[in-house]
């Protein structure tokens, strides 16, 4: 992601969205996704997102609390958010959105065009798995050429 970010997101050529797709057999993935959303509520989504990925093997509730503390969120608020499960629906919605495009595993990337309403994206290409940068580059360049 870092190179895609540098070459295409930071330069304004494309926009990036992260959607949650915790897999059923990843027992702790759902809570981790909620934890990132709860940190996001305090403006620290990407910090928490990166932190959880850094400590990917440690996803117990205590580990997630440690991550949250490390990125500097208000802990009582964070814990209340996590306990409430208020983002469960949002995460389930993300999963359902992915399934519409045939997403079954992670990571899966979709490339598409933003609709005029700004709320929906017409996905036109799928990239399954953690493919090398060149695969993304080729797909992005190809699409950038077709429309401007």
């Amino acid at each position, binding site marked *: *992601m870092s190179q*895609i*970010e540098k070459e*295409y*997101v*930071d330069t*304004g*050529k*494309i*926009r*990036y*969205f*992260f*959607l*949650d*797709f*915790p*897999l059923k057999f*990843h027992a*702790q*993935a759902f809570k*981790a*996704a909620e934890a*990132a959303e709860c940190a*996001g509520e305090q403006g620290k989504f*990407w910090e928490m*997102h990166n932190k*959880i990925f850094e400590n*990917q093997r440690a*996803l117990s509730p205590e580990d997630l609390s440690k991550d949250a503390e490390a990125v500097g969120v208000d802990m009582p608020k964070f814990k209340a958010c996590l306990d409430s499960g208020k983002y469960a629906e*949002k995460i389930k*919605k993300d999963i359902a*959105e*992915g399934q519409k*495009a*045939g*997403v079954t595993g*992670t*990571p*899966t*990337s*979709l*490339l*598409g*065009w*933003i*609709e005029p309403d700004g709320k*929906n*994206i*017409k*996905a036109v*290409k*799928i*990239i*399954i798995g953690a493919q090398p940068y060149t*695969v*993304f580059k080729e797909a*992005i360049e190809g699409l950038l050429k077709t*429309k*401007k």
Partner: protein
Amino acid sequence: MKRLTVLAVLVFLILFCTQIGFAQTSKEIKALKEDVRSIKEGQTTIQKDLQEIKKLLASRPAQPAEFKEAIINIQGAPTKGDKTAKLVLMEFSDYQ
């Protein structure tokens, strides 16, 4: 006469020793050449294997072709980048 004998022995010894020396060096060179040859052979094998691996990787499809266009709602999804950009990369991922 004694002197001469000593001298002769010395010369003989010197010649003999250097010959052994020569013989040893040429033996070593031979062994080294043999080593270099086998290393080269090994390299060629590795290169061949690499080529085959590359071919296999290239022929493997990166993605299935049965993807259907879909409209994805991204409301509430964390985002990065220019809001006016038309092309979008959506990543579906989990943390585990």
